[in-house]
């Protein structure tokens, strides 16, 4: 097991190196650039040239790349040019990543808490009205564009009904103590309950918008997996032993059906942690996704390079975690 994890981590290094090269070239091949983004269309040729030199963009691209690589190894990813001028790319990331984690975790919790029980129920009542209704519901969940749903939720619950805040992470004027950068957690740790509640309220709408696709996917995978397992011989064996229904369900059906579901949860979490660009943008939520959106508009190379590389790392690491947790559930993998 340990050897397996080490091998996967070494693979990760290679993946990141290749990715950084492709990313570097790709960003610079996009039309426009940080200079036009910062100075606008009508800047003088002289000031353009000065800024280009200042940002090091006048060097040949491979010189730029190796300079980037050398600095990156010592943790320096350059200064933000567009998202938060004056901060380093690393500062942008470390300020925003907790916000994205908070949002993603809440969204996944919602998706799992709804998806697994509903998927199980739908499978048990296969072909019934509940099953048909929830399958249609989950199809809609996948099909409706996230930004549309986000706007809809915002309009309904924030603008029309006024129940929930429409944007941001925290109501301005609340002076909360920062410990971890996770606002809800900070509020609880410092016992500033109003701050914790305020942060939580800000999370609800974006988390709901973000949870729809993971919910729909987890629901469908759970339903399909339970249907498969219900037909298995060992479930019939469990019934032939006269076990009570809860034991048959938990021990024999759900435990086996969870294998594909765990993979799905992992993949969905990885995708969310990479930053929910659309949702965060609609709700003005200061997370990694919003930084990516702004970074692209303003061609902020250092921030984009860092955020995308980290997104790839997170994705690979979450997958690794899924593989390891697989071994915990399935003894057939453990002993191999």
């Amino acid at each position, binding site marked *: 097991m340990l050897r397996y994890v080490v091998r996967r981590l070494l693979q990760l290094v290679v993946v990141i190196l290749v990715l950084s090269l492709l990313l570097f070239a790709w960003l610079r091949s996009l039309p426009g650039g940080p200079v036009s983004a910062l100075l606008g269309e009508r800047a003088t040729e002289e000031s353009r040239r000065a800024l280009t030199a200042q940002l090091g963009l006048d060097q040949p691209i491979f010189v730029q790349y190796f300079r980037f690589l050398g600095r990156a190894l010592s943790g320096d990813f350059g200064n933000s040019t567009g998202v938060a001028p004056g901060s380093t790319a690393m500062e942008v990331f470390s300020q925003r990543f907790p916000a994205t984690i908070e949002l993603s975790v809440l969204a996944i919790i919602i998706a799992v808490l709804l998806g697994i029980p509903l998927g199980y129920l739908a499978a048990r009542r296969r072909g019934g009205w509940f099953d048909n209704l929830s399958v249609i519901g989950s199809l809609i969940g996948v099909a409706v564009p996230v930004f549309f749903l986000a706007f809809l939720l915002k309009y309904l619950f924030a603008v029309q009904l006024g129940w929930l805040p429409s944007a941001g992470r925290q109501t301005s004027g609340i002076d909360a103590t920062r410990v971890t950068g996770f606002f809800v957690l900070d509020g609880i740790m410092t016992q500033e309950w109003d701050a914790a509640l305020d942060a939580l309220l800000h999370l609800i709408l974006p988390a709901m918008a973000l949870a729809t696709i993971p919910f729909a996917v987890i629901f469908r995978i759970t339903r399909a997996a339970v249907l498969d397992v219900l037909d*298995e011989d060992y479930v019939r*064996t469990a019934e*032939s*032993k*006269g*076990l*009570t229904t809860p*034991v048959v369900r938990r*021990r024999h059906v759900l435990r086996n059906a969870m294998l594909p579901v765990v993979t799905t949860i992992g993949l969905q979490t990885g995708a969310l942690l990479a930053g929910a660009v659309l949702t965060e943008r609609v709700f003005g939520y200061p997370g990694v996704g919003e930084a990516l959106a702004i970074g692209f508009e303003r061609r902020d190379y250092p921030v984009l390079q860092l955020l995308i590389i980290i997104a790839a790392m997170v994705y690979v690491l979450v997958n690794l975690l899924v593989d390891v947790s697989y071994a915990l559930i399935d003894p*057939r993998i453990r002993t191999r």
Partner: protein
Amino acid sequence: MALLEVRDLTVSFHRRGEPVFTAVDGVSFEVEPGQTVGLVGESGCGKSVTSLAIMGLLPKRGAKVSGSVTFEGTELLRLSDRDMRDRRGRDLGMVFQDPLSSLNPVISIGLQVTEVLERHRGMPRKQAMAEATDLLNKVGIPDPTRRLSEYPHQLSGGMRQRALIAMALACRPRLLIADEPTTALDVTIQAQILALLKELVRDTGTALIMITHDLGVVAGLCDQVNVLYGGRIVERAQRHELFVEPRHPYTHGLLASIPRLDAARGQKLVPIPGSVADNIPWDHACAFAPRCANALDVCRGQTPAEEWHEGRLLRCHNPVEPAADAAAKEDLRV
């Protein structure tokens, strides 16, 4: 009083968009305490469905069960789901065909044995573990303590089937149903498992319903044999009578198609022509008629009734004459 009395058991499957399929069509038989009864026939003859109906394991939707199944005087078909659960695993145990797929792959053998003991005998986990060690020992699994913490994929095929037998017998049921328990195993292992079943049945006094397509299995194990064809019993006799004098042409055909080591060189096996798919409905004919060497006109125009001939039950218009098998009789006497 018989331990198990099956009366007129009929099971039909109703699936949307498909014609109603009657898998078991008025089957009646009895099992006395400690007796071993065989249900024999080709795949599709209704033997497995019969056993699942007795255990109450048929899907609630789609399968219609009628007739009567009484166990020690209690009508099982009318028991509530909860009462039937109380009896399954305690009074009636079952062993299935494929031991690998019949075991839960992600939980240990130990838990799969002890969960029955906890459920029906109310044993605490620790005591159940000790009892499980004992049980595995009894079914001939070496080093049982280690095996209890292992998972199904770590055991050999024979070992898995032994573990399943241990689970089925854990609560000392009065009736064990074994549905083709040796079909998925190697020939050498088959013999071991059959010997084990025979020994356990003798030692514990458990009655056994042996479901098989293999007359070799029947010959070594069963007191009484029911031959099924197309969802009905076509012949029932004591083992010896059945082997010495098969009267139904189907039974006769099954016996003639078994390869024998003592057959003369060059003597060909005689298969039964056609397959179960050639069945015709029992309504106004004998379902076996299209494949039967003895078939008469009456076989295609009239359903044969169950009749008793000298202690055996027979459903046939034109049974095989006993004298025809004088040679076989000689063989068996040797």
